[in-house]
C-alpha cells in the first residue's frame, strides 16, 4: 500500500487552496484515493490556512494524522506544522523569506530550501507566482509526474490562456527540476495506480445529487459552509435548467423553496446552523401543509456564530426539535462524497413520496473537503416521476384525504378543477380550516386528532424509505464504534490502523439520524461487545438520541468540540484505551 500526505500552509490570500487543490487533483488523476482537507479561518487575507492532500492506493477516509511533505509558505506554517512532519519527511520553504533552524526539525526529517521567489522573478514581478515553484518541488517529492502536475495546474486556470498560465507552468517545472536535482523523492512517494478518479467536495456531491434527483429550484442565503452548494448550482444553472435564487435572508430562502415546491417543482434550500435557526418556523409549515422540501444543514462550530470556518456536529438537537408542535421529518446523515450524492437523491425521493420536509445533515468537514469517487459510483440515471399524477375529480378533490399510508393525492396549481388551499393552520381533508370557527367543537376536535395521526403516521413509512444503521467490519469484533456523518471517516481510517495492530473493530454507522430504525439499532447495540460513541460535539447528541429511542446508554465516548476534525490517531488511542490496551 502506497500512501502519502502533502501539506501546504500560509496566510489567507496566499493561494494555499489552489496549491492544495492542484496537488489533490494531480493525485486523483493518478488513480489514487485522495482526501483533501482545506483548513481556513474566518478572515479573507492573513491569518493561517493550510491544505492537506492525502493519497493512497487504498481508500482514504480522512485527512490522516501527519504529513510526509510540508510546503511552508511562511514561518507560522513551519512553527505550527513541523511537529506533524513524519519521519523521513521533508519541509519545503524559501530561505529568502525565513529560515528553519535545524533544531526545529523533528528527528528524521529534512528541509529542502527552494528559492521560489527567485524562480518566480524569472517570469514576473508578481510574487504570487512563487507558489508554482514550491508546488513543483513538492510534487516531485510526492512522486507526482511533472506532466500530471502541469495538466492539473493548467486546468485549474479553466479556459484562461496566456502569460499567467505559461509562467506557472514554467516556474513549476523549475521547482520540480530543482527538487529532483537536490533531493530524493519521499520514501512514500506514490505512483500512478489506475484510471483517474473524480475529486469532489461534499457540497458539490450534494448539489450534483440534487440536480440528478430533479431539483429545479434552489433558494439560499450565503453561509459557510453551505455557500458552495449555491455556487455550484449557480455556475451550472443555465446549463442544467435549475433556477438559483440568492434570497434576502434564510427566512425568504426556505419560504421561496416551499412556494416553488407547491408551485410544482422539486426544490431545496441549504444553510448552516444560524441560517437553519431562521428556517425553523417555515419547516413546520412544510410539515403541516405537507409540502415536499429538502433542506441541507451543514453544521459548523457553535454556539451562535462560534467558529464559522471550523467543523462540528452540534446541531442535531436543533434539527430534531426544529418547529413548534409535531410533524414528520427525516434527517439523513451521509459520511462522504458518494454517500452525500446518494443522500441528496434519497432526500428528494423521501420528501416527495412522503410529502414532508427532509433534512440532509452535513458539516463543514464533509461539505468543504475533497474526496475521491469512482466514476462508476455516480449514477446520473435517476428515475424522476411526473408530479402531475392526480386526475381531476372536481369538487370532491381532497388534498388531505385520509389514506392508510398517510399520503394524500397532490395536485399542482394550473391543474384544472383540483384547486386547494395549502395552509399552516389545522385543516380537514379538503384543506378547510379547523382552526377558526370549528375549533373546540367536539366533532372537529376528533377530526384534528385524526389529522395529526394521519401526518404523524407517515413516520412509519419514512422509516421504510430511509437507510437503517449499517454495521461495517467483522461482526464479532470486540469494539463497535457508533457514529454519524463525517466523523465516520476518521473511524474508517482508524479501523485500518487498528486492524494492522490486530485489533478488530466494527462500525455501526447511523445513516438516518431520524427516524431511527429502532429494531435494527437495538439489535446491533445489544450484539456489540463494547461500544464507543464518537461525535464532534460536547454532549454526545446522537448518544442522547439513541438512549431516548432505545434506552441503550453508550457510556464510552470520544467527544470533541474544538472545531478540528477527528484525527484517526485520536480514535485509535481511545479505542485501545476502552479495550484496555492502554494508549499507544
Amino acid at each position: 500500500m502506497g500512501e502519502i500526505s502533502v501539506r501546504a500552509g500560509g496566510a489567507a490570500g496566499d493561494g494555499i487552496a489552489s496549491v492544495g487543490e492542484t496537488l489533490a487533483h494531480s493525485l486523483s488523476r493518478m488513480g489514487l484515493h485522495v482526501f483533501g482537507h482545506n483548513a481556513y479561518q474566518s478572515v479573507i487575507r492573513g491569518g493561517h490556512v493550510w491544505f492537506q492532500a492525502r493519497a493512497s492506493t487504498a481508500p482514504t477516509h480522512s485527512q490522516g494524522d501527519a504529513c510526509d511533505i510540508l510546503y511552508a509558505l511562511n514561518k507560522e506554517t513551519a512553527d505550527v506544522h513541523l511537529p506533524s512532519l513524519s519521519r523521513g519527511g521533508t519541509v519545503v520553504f524559501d530561505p529568502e523569506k525565513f529560515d528553519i533552524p535545524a533544531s526545529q526539525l523533528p528527528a528524521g526529517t529534512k528541509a529542502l530550501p527552494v528559492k521560489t521567489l527567485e524562480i518566480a522573478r524569472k517570469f514576473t514581478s508578481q510574487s504570487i507566482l512563487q507558489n508554482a515553484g514550491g508546488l513543483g518541488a513538492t510534487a516531485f517529492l510526492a512522486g507526482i509526474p511533472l506532466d500530471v502536475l502541469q495538466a492539473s495546474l493548467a486546468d485549474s486556470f479553466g479556459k484562461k490562456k496566456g502569460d499567467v498560465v505559461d509562467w506557472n507552468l514554467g516556474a513549476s517545472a523549475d521547482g520540480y527540476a530543482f527538487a529532483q536535482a537536490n533531493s530524493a523523492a519521499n520514501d512514500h512517494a506514490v505512483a500512478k495506480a489506475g484510471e483517474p478518479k473524480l475529486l469532489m467536495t461534499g457540497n458539490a456531491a450534494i448539489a450534483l445529487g440534487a440536480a440528478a434527483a430533479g431539483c429545479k429550484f434552489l433558494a439560499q442565503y450565503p453561509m459557510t459552509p453551505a455557500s458552495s452548494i449555491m455556487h455550484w448550482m449557480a455556475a451550472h444553472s443555465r446549463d442544467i435548467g435549475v433556477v438559483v435564487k440568492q434570497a434576502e435572508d434564510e427566512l425568504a430562502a426556505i419560504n421561496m423553496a416551499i412556494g416553488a415546491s407547491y408551485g410544482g417543482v422539486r426544490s431545496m434550500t441549504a444553510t448552516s446552523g444560524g441560517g437553519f435557526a431562521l428556517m425553523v418556523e417555515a419547516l413546520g409549515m412544510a410539515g403541516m401543509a405537507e409540502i415536499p422540501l429538502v433542506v441541507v444543514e451543514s453544521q459548523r462550530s457553535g454556539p451562535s456564530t462560534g467558529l464559522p470556518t471550523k467543523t462540528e456536529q452540534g446541531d442535531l438537537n436543533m434539527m430534531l426539535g426544529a418547529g413548534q408542535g409535531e410533524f414528520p421529518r427525516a434527517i439523513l446523515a451521509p459520511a462522504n462524497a458518494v454517500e452525500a450524492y446518494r443522500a441528496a437523491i434519497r432526500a428528494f425521493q423521501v420528501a416527495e413520496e412522503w410529502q414532508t420536509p427532509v433534512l440532509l445533515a452535513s458539516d463543514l468537514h464533509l461539505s468543504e473537503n475533497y474526496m475521491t469517487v469512482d466514476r462508476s459510483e455516480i449514477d446520473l440515471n435517476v428515475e424522476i416521476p411526473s408530479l402531475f399524477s392526480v386526475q381531476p375529480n372536481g369538487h370532491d378533490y381532497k388534498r388531505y384525504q385520509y389514506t392508510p399510508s398517510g399520503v394524500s393525492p397532490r395536485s399542482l396549481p394550473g391543474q384544472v378543477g383540483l384547486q386547494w388551499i395549502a395552509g399552516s393552520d389545522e385543516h380537514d381533508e379538503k384543506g378547510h380550516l379547523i382552526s377558526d370557527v370549528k375549533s373546540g367543537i367536539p366533532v372537529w376536535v376528533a377530526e384534528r386528532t385524526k389529522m395529526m395521526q394521519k401526518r404523524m403516521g407517515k413516520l412509519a413509512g419514512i422509516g421504510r424509505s430511509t437507510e437503517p444503521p449499517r454495521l461495517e467490519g467483522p461482526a464479532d469484533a470486540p469494539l463497535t464504534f457508533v457514529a454519524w456523518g463525517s466523523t465516520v471517516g476518521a473511524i474508517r481510517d482508524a479501523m485500518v490502523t487498528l486492524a494492522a495492530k490486530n485489533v478488530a473493530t466494527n462500525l455501526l454507522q447511523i445513516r438516518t439520524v431520524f427516524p431511527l430504525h429502532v429494531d435494527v439499532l437495538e439489535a446491533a447495540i445489544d450484539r456489540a461487545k463494547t461500544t464507543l460513541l464518537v461525535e464532534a460535539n460536547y454532549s454526545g447528541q446522537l448518544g442522547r438520541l439513541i438512549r431516548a429511542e432505545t434506552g441503550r446508554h453508550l457510556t464510552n465516548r470520544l467527544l470533541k468540540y474544538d472545531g478540528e476534525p477527528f484525527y484517526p490517531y485520536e480514535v485509535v488511542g481511545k479505542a485501545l484505551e476502552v479495550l484496555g490496551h492502554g494508549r499507544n
Partner: protein
Amino acid sequence: MAGTSAPSVAPTVGTLLPLIGKSDTKPTWCPGCGDFGVVAAVEMALKRLKIPSHQVVLVSGIGCSSNLPHFLSSYGFHSIHGRSLPVAEGIRWANHTLTVIATGGDGDGFGIGAGHFIHTMRRNVDMTYVTMDNQIYGLTTGQASPTSMMGQKTKSTPAGVIENPIDPISLALAAGATYIARAFSGDVKQMADLVAGGIQHKGFAFIDAMSPCVTYNKINTFDWFRQRVYKLENSGHDPTDIVQAWQRSLEWGDKVPTGLFYKADKPTYEDLEEVLTAGPLANQPAGLKGRESLLDEFI
C-alpha cells in the same frame, strides 16, 4: 417530468374553464369588516380579466385579512405570518404562467414582513400584492400596527403610539415597485379597477387597500376615510412622474389620495432569469440523465 410528454400546466387556451368565484367557505370576518370589500374587488378583477380559477394562486400570511384565499375558488397558500411574499415568489418562479396574487395585513406585510416587502419590490417580480391595511393588528385583538397613527391608543400602546407610521406608498416608491396604488374598501369599484390594472401590469404591482377594522380601530373608520379620500386620477396627477408620486405619497391627514401613484415599465425578474426563457420551470425536463459530461470537471 423527465422528457416532454408530462402533462402541461400551461394555460389551456380555447377551452371555457371556470372563472373565479366564491368558495364553499363563508368569510369569518366581523360584519362590516373592510376585508369584504377587498375580496369582492379581487373577485371582480379576476372575473373581468377572465383568468380561469385554476390559473390563479392567492397567497397570504396570517391575520384576519390573510384568511382571504379560503373564500375564493382558486388555488391558494395560506402561509405563515409575514412570509406571503417569498412563498408567492417561489410559486411564480416554479410556474410563471400562473397569476399570483399575494394578500394580507399591514402587520403581516409591513411589520414582520417588511424585509421581504422591500426585496420583492426591487426584484420587480411580476405579481400583485394587495395589503388589507387596517392600521391595526386585528386577529391578535387590537395591538398597534406599523401603520397605526401617532398617538393611537391600543392594547400594546395604552398611552398612545410613539413611532411614526410606515408609509407603504413611499416605501414602495423607494424600493422600486413599478405599479403603486392606494385603494379603499369603501370604493370597491375603484379597488377592482386598481387590482385589475395591477394584474395586467408587467412587474410588481402593489395596492395598499385601506380596509377598516370595525372592531379594533376606532380612529381610521370608513367615515374617517370617506371624509378624506380623493382620487388621483381626477387631480391631474401624472403616475409616470416619480417625483410627483413621491410628493403625493407625503399627503396623509386631511386629504388621503387614492388611485394610481406610480407606474413604470421595467423588465421583470422572470424576463431576466434566463432559465425561465425555456418556459415554465414546472414544465421543463428535470434530472441529469445522459449528462455524464458534467462529471468531467471533477477530474
